[in-house]
């Protein structure tokens, strides 16, 4: 086997060192942390699969717009999801999983929770461990990146970027990707949205649910509209992060998965042959 296998077919542009070691390390720490946070979070959610608005949960009045559960009518068990008071049968997807006597009543299915069986205590152990990892790496990354000017230089969209937004949307819609040494404006907006909006939002709303932290910063809960609203925002931020992940994967597949994976694992990235922006770092 020779060392001369070209990966990108006809594209034989310059290979550049695109992602430095710290970007790659933090990227994978976040990826692993978010994997465990998501699945342990769904385990925790399953303990009370409602989403409510306000300071408390209404039991004798209703302030929940999502309620997931299961019911039995005669011999038939079914799973349901209630959205703003309207009930939908979601057997097999939400509320009830499997069939016959082995059917499991829980909101999200065992395949999407850590551990797979109902175990809130373990789910919490896993969740808070990776929450600490996420918070500590994000803080370290933020301090390092801001102090080196990398946030402004590489992530925050500037005026030129914003002008190129319509063109970039068209290019993405046609799946025409530019492989350069820089992020396109849509990439910048997506990454900034995750790093500076969704990550802080999910961390702040997570802290707002902690009774200990609540004693430290009571105004935070008031600001967020109460503990149950914070819990709901936490859930929505999770859903948006899952949405980001899906698009992130699709974009990688569309833009050339091997080149993209190589850049986030080894740092090396092949640019378009005509790329003017290929810069060495």
């Amino acid at each position, binding site marked *: *086997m020779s060392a*001369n*296998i*070209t*990966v990108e077919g006809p594209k034989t542009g*310059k*290979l550049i*060192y695109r992602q430095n070691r710290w970007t790659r390390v933090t990227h994978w720490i976040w990826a692993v942390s978010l*994997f465990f946070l998501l*699945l342990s979070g769904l385990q*925790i*959610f399953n*303990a009370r699969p*409602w989403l*409510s608005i306000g*300071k*408390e*949960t*209404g*039991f*004798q*009045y209703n302030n929940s717009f999502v309620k997931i559960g299961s019911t039995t009518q005669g011999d038939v068990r079914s799973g349901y999801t209630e959205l703003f008071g309207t009930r939908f049968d979601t057997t097999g997807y939400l509320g009830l999983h499997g069939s016959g006597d082995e059917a499991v009543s829980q909101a999200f299915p*065992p395949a*999407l*929770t*850590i*551990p*797979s*069986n109902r*175990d*809130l*205590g*373990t789910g*919490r*152990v*896993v969740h*808070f*461990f990776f929450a*600490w990892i996420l918070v500590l790496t994000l803080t370290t990354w933020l301090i390092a990146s801001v102090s080196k000017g990398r946030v402004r230089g590489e992530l925050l969209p500037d005026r030129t970027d914003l002008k190129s937004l319509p063109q970039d949307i068209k290019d993405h819609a046609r799946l025409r990707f530019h492989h350069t040494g820089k992020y396109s404006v849509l990439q910048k907006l997506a990454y900034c949205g995750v790093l500076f909006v969704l990550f802080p939002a999910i961390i702040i709303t997570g802290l707002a*649910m*902690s*009774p*200990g*932290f*609540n*004693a*430290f910063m*009571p105004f935070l*809960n008031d600001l967020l509209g109460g*503990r*149950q609203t914070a*819990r709901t925002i936490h859930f929505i931020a999770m859903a948006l992060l899952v949405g980001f992940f899906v698009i992130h994967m699709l974009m990688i597949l569309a833009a050339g*998965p*091997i080149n993209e*994976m*190589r850049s986030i*694992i*080894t740092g*090396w990235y092949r640019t378009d042959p005509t790329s003017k922006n290929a810069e*060495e770092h």
Partner: protein
Amino acid sequence: MTSSNQIPNIARRRFLTSASIGASGLALTGCDAFDRLSNRDDEVRAVLEKANSLTYRVQRMLIGGNRLAQEFSESDIRQQHRANGTSDPVDEDYKAHVAAKFADYRLEISGLVNAPKSFSLSDIKSMPSRTQITRHDCVEGWSSIAKWTGTPLATILDQVGVKDSARFVVFECFDTVDQTLSGPIKYYESIDLIDARHAQTILAYGMNGLDLPVENGAPLRVRVERQLGYKMAKYISKITLVDDLAPFGSGHGSYWSDNGYEWYAGI
């Protein structure tokens, strides 16, 4: 990786392929791959659990012994406080107390104290009281706001005199929560002396302006407002000051901690 013209070799390509297969395999097999973490003796779990000691230490630094939990107004009380866990103990001694309206009830305080004592419910009610409207956060994720009236635990601790060697306050309860081969398990909980002496830590005998109902823990339930609901033991029969939690239950300091939940529930 020294040259910018270096072409990826087959080894790296293989690595990429196996990495992506590994990642998709992880997603397809679901999460029973991590079920070993449910085992309390698992080494990986032991590492993950260390995060909770970090949470405890950081929260102790942030809120210390004085910071108060958020208090609410009368208008925030919108419902009867939800009863969770045991709501009607079947234990005979408890049922006898309910029948006698707790006239013969005695709260016994012993362990590492200078003068062990027992108090009747009227002794406790005659001490200075504190009333607070607080939010009860259950580990399951729900919250419920109610008004609690009771005697600060610190007042009672001062009456018996806590020895310097004491580190924890253990609450033993009337209610049987579990049946095991070695017999019935009664609910118990414990807190450190920082929470025990906190201004909002009260032995509550009143709720929303009335006597504490049986379903919410009559005659006494402890309020530990900066932690989750499971710390706030109901149906308290006995308080013991100790320097070691090992002799109680399976030694983790509370019924729920013996069942895999963190002893410190500030998060």
